[in-house]
């Protein structure tokens, strides 16, 4: 029979495709692991920080200049994905061997204007071992001369600083380790930390016996320079999840060919943590701006984990290389983040399929849970779920009101869509006003799908009652949470980013699930009397 033949051919092709979807990705992965020697340890993700510098001015018709420093990529930190959204302001970036400066300029500025500069940072923790017998050299290359002189805030030749230094480091010819240890310990232990943001020069810090980071750092540099150890101030940011205004300063001393970091506020001796971002070197001011413009700024830092750089670099020679894939996307201006969302979406879909076809939960829409979960990556699960519920609730109420007005279908749907957009805008603005910046990312929600879902919610509420709606909403939330857990899993993210061919395995799993005829868990409950009842009968007979 022709029908049987085509059935046989279909099964053959099914098995063939399934085999390809399993074997191909496994061989590509094996090739990467064994031939290209892809480091598996590279799968353990490294922290990356998204830093947003948000600035605001109030213009009264004047020309406004704003000036600050941008981080540079060096051996310790790497900076990428830079984005400048400066509205009316034009940005000009200048780079010298030490620092990268940016100036934003605009003419005739009126009203409140904002500038947002964002970048992603990956940095390493670095620690130096200073040999105990290393002595202070008598002379240095000429290029280091500027790191040994007195500066307005670094009064290295002041008698009081000199006298204090004699007490702290009494030896006539101290070893470098001994000298910097004594200075570091004295500043750390004997000078109280003061958390104020004003400028403190080295002498004032010494006199007061207390200082914030910049005072302590200037005193450190002054003392080091006095001992003929080249030293410099470093301005930067301690990257922690959240919003902050305070920047940080620490110092570096030039020891045996290396710039060795010291932080006498947070007690980092010859080391620097991975969340320190270097913005500039020297005794400089981080922000300079035209006067009387009510300049405001804050840093907004979000931490995320990304695959390790060296692991990516290890594959850079291969045509299968994921970093090449990044490059393709970046060439057309699509961010890594979006790429990551794209790559994780199939996993979310797979999770949804398992919940629907194996567990048997009813959800709104087939892939709405996966889409909401991917949007919730930006807002966090809690705010994502709250946002989802508010949008659905408000638009379902609106839909009922529209029902009462008796409108035709398409215009009604257009109003629903508009409602979803407005609710999202209100939540975004409200979120910013209340300082809930996570809420501001709600705009990534799939608007059209939400409008359709709201329509379906209202329809279902009218036809099958609020209980049914509550039930399916609850099920949908469970599946959203499950999708989120998988899609937000750093291990899964690194795995898919490193081995994108594994998406074919997701297809294979779906092919298998597509032929799975088992009873869903919820159906087992639904028909339990039929299924278990018969077993009881068997036992009795």
């Amino acid at each position, binding site marked *: *029979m022709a029908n049987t033949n085509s059935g046989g051919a279909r099964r053959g092709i099914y098995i063939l495709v399934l085999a390809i979807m399993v074997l191909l990705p496994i061989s590509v992965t094996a090739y990467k692991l064994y031939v290209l020697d892809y480091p598996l340890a590279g799968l353990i993700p490294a922290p990356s920080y998204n830093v947003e510098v948000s600035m605001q001015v109030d213009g009264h018709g004047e020309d406004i200049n704003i000036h600050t420093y941008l981080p540079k990529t060096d051996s310790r930190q790497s900076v990428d994905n830079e984005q400048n959204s400066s509205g009316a302001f034009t940005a000009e970036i200048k780079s010298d061997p030490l620092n990268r400066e940016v100036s934003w300029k605009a003419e005739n500025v009126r009203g409140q204007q904002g500038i947002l500069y964002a970048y992603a940072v990956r940095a390493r923790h670095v620690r130096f071992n200073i040999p105990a017998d290393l002595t202070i050299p008598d002379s240095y290359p000429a290029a280091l001369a500027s790191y040994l002189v007195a500066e307005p805030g670094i009064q290295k030749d002041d008698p009081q600083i000199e006298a204090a230094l004699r007490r702290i480091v009494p030896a006539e010819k101290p070893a470098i380790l001994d000298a910097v240890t004594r200075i570091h310990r004295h500043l750390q232990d004997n000078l109280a930390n003061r958390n104020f943001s004003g400028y403190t020069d080295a002498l004032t810090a010494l006199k007061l016996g207390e200082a914030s980071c910049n005072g302590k750092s200037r005193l450190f540099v002054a003392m080091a320079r006095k001992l003929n150890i080249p030293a410099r101030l470093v301005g930067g940011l301690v990257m922690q999840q959240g919003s902050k205004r305070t920047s940080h300063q620490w110092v570096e001393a030039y020891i045996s060919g290396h710039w060795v970091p010291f932080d006498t506020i947070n007690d980092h001796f010859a080391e620097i943590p991975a969340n320190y971002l270097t913005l500039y070197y020297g005794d400089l001011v981080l922000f300079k701006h035209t006067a009387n413009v009510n300049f405001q700024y804050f840093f907004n830092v979000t931490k995320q984990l990304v695959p390790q750089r060296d692991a990516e670099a290890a594959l850079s020679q291969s045509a299968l290389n994921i970093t090449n894939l990044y490059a393709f996307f970046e060439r057309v201006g699509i961010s890594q983040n979006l790429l990551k969302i794209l790559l994780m979406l199939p996993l979310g879909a797979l999770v949804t399929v398992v919940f629907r*076809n194996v567990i*048997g939960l009813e959800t709104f829409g087939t892939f709405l849970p996966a889409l909401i979960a991917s949007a919730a990556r930006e807002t966090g699960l809690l705010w994502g779920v709250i946002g989802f519920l508010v949008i659905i609730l408000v638009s379902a109420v609106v839909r009922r009101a529209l029902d009462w007005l*008796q409108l*035709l*279908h*398409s215009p009604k749907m257009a109003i629903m869509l508009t409602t979803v957009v407005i609710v999202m805008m209100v939540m975004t603005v409200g979120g910013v006003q209340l300082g809930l910046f996570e809420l501001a990312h709600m705009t990534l929600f799939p608007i059209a799908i939400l409008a359709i879902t709201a329509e379906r919610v209202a329809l279902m509420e009218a*036809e*099958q009652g609020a209980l049914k709606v509550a039930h399916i909403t609850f099920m949908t939330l469970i599946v959203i949470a499950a999708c989120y857990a998988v899609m937000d899993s750093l291990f899964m993210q690194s795995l898919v980013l490193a081995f994108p061919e594994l998406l074919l395995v997701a297809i294979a799993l779906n092919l298998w699930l597509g*032929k*799975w*005829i*088992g*009873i*869903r868990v919820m*159906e087992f409950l*639904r*028909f339990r*009397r*039929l*299924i278990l*009842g*018969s*077993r009881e*009968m068997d036992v009795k007979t």
Partner: protein
Amino acid sequence: MRSLREFLSLLSGTHERAATVLAMNRRNLHYIYTRNERRHFPLADDKLLAKEVLVAAGVRMPETYRTYSYFYQLRNLEQDLDANHDFVIKPAQGSGGNGIIVIVGRSGRDWLGISGKIYTAYDLQKHISDIIFGVYSFDLGDRAIIESRITQHAEMEELSPLGLADVRVIMCDDFPVMSMTRVPTRQSDGKANLHQGALGVAIDIPTGVTTHARFLGQPIDRHPDSGIPLIGRTLPFWPEILELAQRAARAVPLKYLGVDISVSPDGPQLLEINVRPGLEIQNVNERGMLPILQAMTMKETSQDE
């Protein structure tokens, strides 16, 4: 060729309630997808299209008085509707009984719905516009059907005093697999929908006798509103119902079907066919339908070889 009688005797044989529930995945994969080609789905989803094919094959269905496809056709709605005393308005592509209005007579210039609700000419015009616009069809547009209202056979009226009961027969490869009648209750608001609180009453296919009943997920033996016994009743015109179901199944290229029939005083009439019939019928019958389906397929295979 197996006769219906032959098949019924096979069914009346002992069937254990083995762990043999037909579940969603298997239903879709082994019965719906393999027996109902996607291109034939519109036949079941569009009641007008189905009616055309079924009536041509000699299947008795409610008489179509009129159909509306365009808004301009509604201009003379009042005069159009004057032609009939009672009628039913339904969307051609509706589902779950939504969008259906049953008119039982006039109330002055207005119309009287079966639930006692009064419909003005504007109400009906608005409703038909909604249908044409696709409000009940999840589609871009639809057609509205005005057809004759079915009155129930006296025995069905006794069983189902709160509304029109329908008899659902699951047909696989043109043979009946399982059956029940769905009886509206106060809870279901006159709708014959199990999930909304209608009664499900199982019917033994060989005899047409009711065997079990279920209400809101629980076994029950009396009508929750009228109190009449539900078990042991013989459905009127049962052989004719099965014959009608088989005739309908043979008339369409869909080989796994839910056939919905109502029983009027002069015999059964087909209401609609459904390509994705639900699974709750197994709970109503208190047995799974997989053994029956498998017995049928096995027989088929052995005959082929």
